[in-house]
């Protein structure tokens, strides 16, 4: 069972600054534990939706660090808009979390 993400979306003008913290081991398939290779286990796709419309999608590899952080900016966002982030890893595991865009300080 995948752990929840931490998502922050803060408005700066009409641009939402979205920062996502994901809990994932991101195993490279290179590491050994007790003499055995730890199998590849990494996030493959990430998609972000703003009010149901996909605004960001990425194919990523095992080169990304453990517990990765993704940050991106979305134009035309308003306070209260819904941001939904989904990742899928190579074992087929999936996790979706959401947040609402907050007005910046």
């Amino acid at each position: 069972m995948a752990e929840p993400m931490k998502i922050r979306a803060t408005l700066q003008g009409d641009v939402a600054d979205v920062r996502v913290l994901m809990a994932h081991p991101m195993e490279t398939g290179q590491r050994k534990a007790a003499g055995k290779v730890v199998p590849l286990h990494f996030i493959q796709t990430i998609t972000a939706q703003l009010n149901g419309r996909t605004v960001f999608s990425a194919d990523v590899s095992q080169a990304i660090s453990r517990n990765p952080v993704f940050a991106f900016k979305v134009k035309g966002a308003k306070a209260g808009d819904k941001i939904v982030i989904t990742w899928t890893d190579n074992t087929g595991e999936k996790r979706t979390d959401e947040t609402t865009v907050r007005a910046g300080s």
Partner: protein
Amino acid sequence: MRHALVLGLAAAVAAAPWLQASAQAPDPTAAEFDKFREVLEQDNPAELFEAKGEELWRARRGPKNASLEQCDLGLGAGVVKGAYARMPRYFADAGRVMDAEARIVHCMMTLQGFSYAELAKQPFSNASRTPDPVSLITYVAAQSRGMKVAAPQDHPKERDAYETGKAIFFYRAGAFDFSCASCHGADDKRIRTQPLPNFTKPAKAIAAVQGWPGYRMTGGVMHSLQWRMNDCFRQQRFPEPAYASETLSALLTYLTVNANGHVYRGPGIKR
């Protein structure tokens, strides 16, 4: 004659601010590292462990199927807010001074029925597993974010712990004839590019508390102060102290009391 004296005084006054500035001017390399750290702190994966720790705190677990919500961290049963900044302290029910992690381990044993052997089997995080007390301590520490460090020294046992901790800090032994003070007992020491703060000075002692528990980017693991102390002893080629032992609580009492009055910024991030 009088004129010369006034001039001399003026020169002394003029020299003083310069001297002060040079003593306080941060090393440019260290300043760059601080900037780097500030950026990292905005997205600290320690938050993930904080969330996990909170979940563990509330979950009914262990042979006794109980949550930790009745755990007394020194401010009354179940009070977590601000407790971390006020530890180590003396706990009458345990009859000893305990640092925050030792207290959490104590609660896991008494409330949830876990055995010490079970918890001490793998006390520190590695790439494959983060032990539960590490997530729990991250959650508890985060509830003291922005608060002043105020480890008490009211009970005689707390003052004893401070003196014992101080003795441990200065105790030289082992293959290298090392003590904690060999690295952390004088100003402006460093190991490679890492500055080594002088924990005997109140102004720098906060460095022993700040940033812990910390997420270490090397390996991507969460570490607590228990690990930091253990690893310092290992590096000194000392026998490693027992997990959550009185020895470590005493040493942490010495370090924390020296840092009293500084503001704790919550779980940190390390290289």
